[in-house]
């Protein structure tokens, strides 16, 4: 009874605000778009003229009818994967450094990692617009270096590169935190034991620290990969016209072209894709940990 009192409200909250809307999304993805946006009614109104009513898989057919949508999906996955990898490569040494630093400094260092959250997300992205802009010192610097090698100047802003930089910048803390939480718990005597039994620094990392940090790597990767996949603000601001990702596409269906069924279908496809990636990585993680060494 007490369990229901404590667990009930959040359960109801999730049912009302997550499960129900999800069902609505599934349903709307199988409907026709309304004449002026939104959804067409399920049944023809009284005295209604022709038009499309009822249920249909047209939205899904449309998705596969043009290769561009699949391409955007693949590109989004590519960006998400690249962001995750870059975040991992950048976050791992940082998390390790924090985890191995003196206890009294650790909380301060973690605070510094999350400090950017204290300022508005959009402001931070706009700041990158200035940093990557053609007149910025950074751009001049990069182009000066490229010039030395005889490479023509490049525009950093409004490019896939800018999108990637923004994505990595925004999501880095989401990789650092779970990694740190994991690494901080490692028993230092395991590294002593490995060294004692003949493992070099490199072997101690690959055979002890790395496999033990796999759960942290997987949760950090999920925390980066999934939001990046749906992110539209960063490509909107930092990307060029050709740098549209799934997030932008979905947003456009609801706010721009007002084709709700197609937007819903895209969302459902994205959810399914994320779920299968998550399922796959869980499976890989489990077997990696079973055979890990």
């Amino acid at each position, binding site marked *: 009874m007490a369990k229901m009192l404590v667990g009930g409200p959040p359960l109801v909250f999730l049912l009302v605000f997550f499960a129900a809307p999800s069902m609505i999304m599934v349903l709307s993805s199988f409907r026709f778009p309304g004449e002026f946006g939104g959804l067409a009614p399920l049944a023809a109104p009284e005295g209604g003229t022709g038009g499309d009513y009822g249920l249909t898989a047209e939205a899904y057919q449309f998705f596969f009818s043009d290769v561009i949508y699949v391409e955007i999906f693949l590109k989004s996955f590519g960006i998400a994967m690249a962001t995750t990898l870059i975040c991992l490569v950048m976050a791992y040494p940082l998390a390790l450094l924090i985890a191995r630093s003196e206890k009294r400094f650790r909380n301060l260092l973690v605070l510094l990692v999350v400090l950017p959250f204290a300022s508005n997300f959009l402001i931070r992205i706009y700041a990158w617009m200035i940093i990557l802009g053609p007149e910025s010192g950074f751009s001049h610097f990069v182009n000066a270096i490229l010039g030395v090698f005889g490479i023509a100047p490049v525009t950093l802003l409004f490019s896939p590169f800018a999108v990637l930089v923004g994505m990595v910048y925004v999501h880095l803390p989401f990789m650092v935190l779970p990694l740190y939480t994991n690494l901080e718990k490692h028993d230092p005597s395991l590294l002593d*034991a490995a060294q*004692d039994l*003949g493992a070099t620094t490199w072997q101690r990392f690959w*055979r002890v620290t790395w496999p033990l940090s796999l759960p942290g790597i997987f949760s950090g990767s999920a925390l980066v990969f999934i939001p990046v996949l749906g992110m539209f603000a960063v490509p909107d601001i930092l990307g060029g016209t050709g740098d549209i990702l799934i997030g932008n596409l979905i947003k456009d269906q609801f706010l721009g072209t007002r084709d709700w069924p197609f937007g819903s279908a895209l969302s459902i496809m994205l959810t399914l894709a994320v779920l299968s990636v998550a399922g796959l990585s869980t499976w890989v993680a489990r077997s990696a940990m079973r055979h*890990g060494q």
Partner: protein
Amino acid sequence: MALLEIREVTKRFGSYTAVDHVNISVQAGEFFTLLGPSGCGKTTLLRMIAGFDLPDSGQILLDGKDMVGTPPEKRPVHTVFQTYALFPHMTVAENIAFPLKMARKPSHEIKLQVGEALDNVRLSDFGHRLPHELSGGQKQRVAFARGLVNRPRLLLLDEPLGALDAKLREEMQIELINLQKNVGVTFVFVTHAQNEALALSHRIAVMNKGSVEQIDEPSKIYSSPRNRFVADFIGKISIMNATVLEAAPSHLKLDVAGLGHVTAAGNQGVRTGDRGVMAIRPEQVRISHPSTDLELKNHFHGKVHDFLYMGDVTTYIVELSNGIRIEALLPNSAPGRAKFFEAGDEVAVSWRHDAGIFLNE
């Protein structure tokens, strides 16, 4: 040549001297124990032998070779850690194979040696288990097997039995003795449990405040402690202030404050007039009814102050007429009878002429 030679080794942490001019030599095949209270420097010494810490001065030689420039991973020395430090993500077999893999042994040889090592610790059916699926005693045995599998010149054991309950501890002690006998690897064992040290070791170095107080066989450590610290730390002992009245090679005549003349074991280094303490083990003291005819040289009357019933034996704390307390151990040999004396009983205590030992302050 000794297998391990520790020469004048000193280690300081800031202003604190953890190990102070220690000299120890360990012979090949020996079961050598570093015994002392926590903070006596025994673990620091062990870490220096393993290579995790470097001495500030002095030398550590293994097979005559100075180990200073050799990092832990390059030393033919393995350690069994207090917490076992088994790799949680590796199976038992993978844990044991680890040192062999690091030594780049061919895989068929690894398989063979791991199987043998599992047999040695009676865990043949547990190779595929993960450490968290094992009991404390099993984990302990895996740690032993992992430390021994690559036949190190020296196996260091850092209070390995500390986490086990009393019953299992005793079992593991016997297992450890057999294991050492079978594999013939030299053991350096660290413990603060004196009974464990006495039961396991060929020789013991008793350490206190960073220094070695005495290195000897267990029986010598117990029966002829060199000083008050060793006497007090190893086993139970009653200690009373005494002055030497007469020093003969065969015996000493002591004046024990408030008790009178006591005859004690002869001790070469003691001279007439020396002041110190007379120490006597509880099991050397006989406790009897005051009326009993006593044929022993040292006998005194007293009253049972308190007693500790321990099942197999009962320790009686007897307060002698002058207020000095002495402990006497009595085996509970009469079936069905828990104790022979009650608190407050008038008793006589007596001991052989050579049972007491005199220790200079």
